[in-house]
């Protein structure tokens, strides 16, 4: 198993290299110039050029890449072009924000959606099933930024129950932090619960018709027991893939939700950096996001054999 983990991590290295090259190349390929953005309409000819030299952007792209990789290997991801801050702490701070919301949100979404989807499948075509389908489909069709704004309007403005903006890290106390992330987490829960519930329902329907389920019933097990002990593990595998995917992509930043609720998360960091053509930040963040993605997938792969012993890890 340890070997498996090590090989998996080793096999992620080419992925990371691929990502870094693609990001590096694409960034320099798309129009837009960090120096120009910094100067805006105040720029005078020559000033942009001077700024580029100062930023080290005048060197050939390959040389820039090698310099960057070399520094990155020593843990130096450079400094942000627009704010001059070190990239790594910038990323880690932003990640802690995104991660606490995403983990909480996806966890709650899964805890609600997976049982709901499975229950719906179990009572296929019952009113409960129709209800779950309807709710999950409706949730699925609501844009999350819109949902977030609505929540903001209702709970933040009309009712005034919750703060509208800002973020307090958990290190500054549990309750204050909680108050600030209730709305973003709720938005995330609502927008992620739809697909998860549908996936759980579909795969449970597949499993529910298998012979061993009938056999479990023949043992006199109650329906919840049949479902929990026999259907769950088998039906959960595809859902786990989906959850893994959702986690992997969300941990890389929930730009929209972060923007609506003004959370200083990874997604916003990345989007802002892309718009500002803040190359070091984009590159560092991308590498980080790719690494997160690899780790989440590794965990999913490690969990898989527990759900389906026939699939050897």
């Amino acid at each position, binding site marked *: 198993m340890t070997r498996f983990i090590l090989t998996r991590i080793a096999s992620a290295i080419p992925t990371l290299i691929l990502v870094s090259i693609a990001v590096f190349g694409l960034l320099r390929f*798309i*129009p*837009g*110039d960090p120096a*120009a*953005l*910094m*100067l*805006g*309409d*105040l*720029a*005078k*000819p020559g*000033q*942009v050029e*001077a*700024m580029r030299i*100062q930023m080290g952007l005048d060197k050939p792209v390959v040389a820039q890449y090698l310099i960057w990789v070399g520094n990155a290997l020593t843990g130096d991801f450079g400094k942000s072009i*627009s*704010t*001059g*801050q070190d990239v790594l702490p*910038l990323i880690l*701070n*932003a990640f802690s924000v995104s991660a606490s919301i995403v983990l909480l949100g996806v966890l709650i979404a899964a805890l609600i959606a997976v049982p709901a989807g499975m229950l719906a499948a179990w009572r296929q075509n019952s009113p409960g099933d129709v209800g779950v389908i309807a709710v999950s489909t409706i949730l699925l069709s609501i844009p999350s930024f819109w949902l977030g*704004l609505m929540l*903001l*309007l209702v709970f*933040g*403005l009309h009712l*005034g129950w919750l*703060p*509208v*903006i*800002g*973020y307090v890290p958990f290190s500054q106390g549990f309750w204050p932090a909680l108050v600030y992330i209730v709305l973003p987490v709720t938005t995330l829960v609502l927008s992620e619960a739809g697909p998860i519930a549908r996936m759980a329902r579909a795969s449970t329907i597949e499993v529910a018709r298998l012979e061993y389920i009938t056999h479990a019933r023949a043992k006199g097990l109650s329906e919840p027991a049949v479902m929990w002990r026999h259907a769950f593990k088998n039906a959960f595998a595809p859902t786990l893939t989906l959850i893994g995917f959702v986690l992997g992509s969300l941990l890389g930043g929930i730009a929209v939700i972060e*923007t*609506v*609720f*003004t959370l*200083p998360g990874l997604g*916003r*960091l990345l989007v*802002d950096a892309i*718009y*500002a*053509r803040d190359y070091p930040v984009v590159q560092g963040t991308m590498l980080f996001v790719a690494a997160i993605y690899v780790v989440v997938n590794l965990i999913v792969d490690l969990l898989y054999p527990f759900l389906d012993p026939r699939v050897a890890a």
Partner: protein
Amino acid sequence: EEPPKKGGTLNVRLNADIRSTNGIQRDANTDTVMHQIFETLVGYRADLSIGPVLAESWKMSEDGKAYTFTLREGAVYHNGDKVTAADVKWNWERRMNPANEWLFITSFDGTQGLKVEAVEVVDERTVTFKLNAPNALFLPLLAGLQANIWVASPKNVGADGKWIGDSAIGSGPFKLKEWVKGQYIALDRFDGYKPIAEEPSGFAGSREAYVDHVRFTIIPDTSAAEAALFAGEIDILPNFETTRIEEAKSRGVNLVSSQGLSWTAILLQTNDPLLSNPKMRKALAHAVDISQIAAARTNGLAKADPSAVAPATAFYDDSFSSQWPQYDPTKAQALAAEAGYKGEKLKIQTNTRYQGMYENSVLLQAMLTAAGFNAELEVLDWAAQLDNYLAGKFQLQSFGFSARFDPSLMYSTIMGDKKTDPTAQWDSPKAWELYLKSVATDKFEERKAVFKQLHTLMAEEVPMLGLYFEPSVEATSSKVKGYTAWPAENPRTWGVWKSE
């Protein structure tokens, strides 16, 4: 009107984090925050005249080539040190040091005419700036917000000659408490601040502060910022989108507005085969109803102004608005036909990052289409559009110029030789001569006459389509008292107090 009272926290929205505290790496947000902490020698009043800030008075020499400033009595830094004339010199030299890459070096080294030849310390509170020639722009530049020519304590700089991290020891009414990157910048009132007697106006005059704390909260999303304002979580929302005014009023929010200085325009590439013909450009001008665009976009707060002279400045009168090809689609068609236009595609570059630029372009496209032009929008990422602006790679572009406090500064921005400076919109030797005339004197009437001539020329050549000056609208919660808008969009936190 209740009397000012002390205490409380004032929350101000910023749409992005600031860049640094050193006055060199800057943007509009950075300027806003730094001007609460630091003081320039002189500043703009709300009527855009120059008033005292750190310098309580100044004198121009007879030949107009020397300005002598007297520092405010009792001015001290946040660390208790006295502000001295030597510090002014030291700050100046730091800025002018090419290694520091200050953006405005060229404004003062003779490249653009003006040159500060020496800064001399007369005594502890008196300092003299010596110029190469009289220049009407010297004081306006010194007072400019973007140049950030404020006076900082030399202790902000370490032994290595570099600015220390987030250090911000200034002499303003607030001192930096905490800068949490990406989230907020917290300021505390500096109780050692001794204001001057002059009434506060714009960035000039007394900066006496009332609130105990100021917090600039970073909220990039406009809708979220509004929500925060309506929920009472922020007190001041600068740059309020004019189209949202009705909504805000209905929610009990106070709105203050004033004429603005940011000029919104449609750029025309005069090198373009089609647009190099002035007839064609005139045809376009006739096809666009700028007053309707201005009205729709600014909710009636701003009038159309095709000239570079802002209505907020004392130089403006109605002739700047009226002297321009009138809205007349028939005439537009006739002119276009004369120019040999045969339905070729006209591409308008725009972006959605700035709502104003976007909406202007949509309106423009609809009007041009209605007048029989084959106009098309090309929506770009702002960075890409800016690249094109800098390289002159566009046919039409919806654009906005940031605030320039003096008409000459705005004219100088749009003028130049397209061969060497692709950002120049108006490549006309005649116009350049007029511009030079406008800065050679600081007599008001003389300057105004020159501006009129400039505008007449512009209406003749139509190098671009000026639309209007974005009004400066700020929304404040009903608790905020004593807050007024002024042409610059940068909010002020002094002179403001909160009621219960």
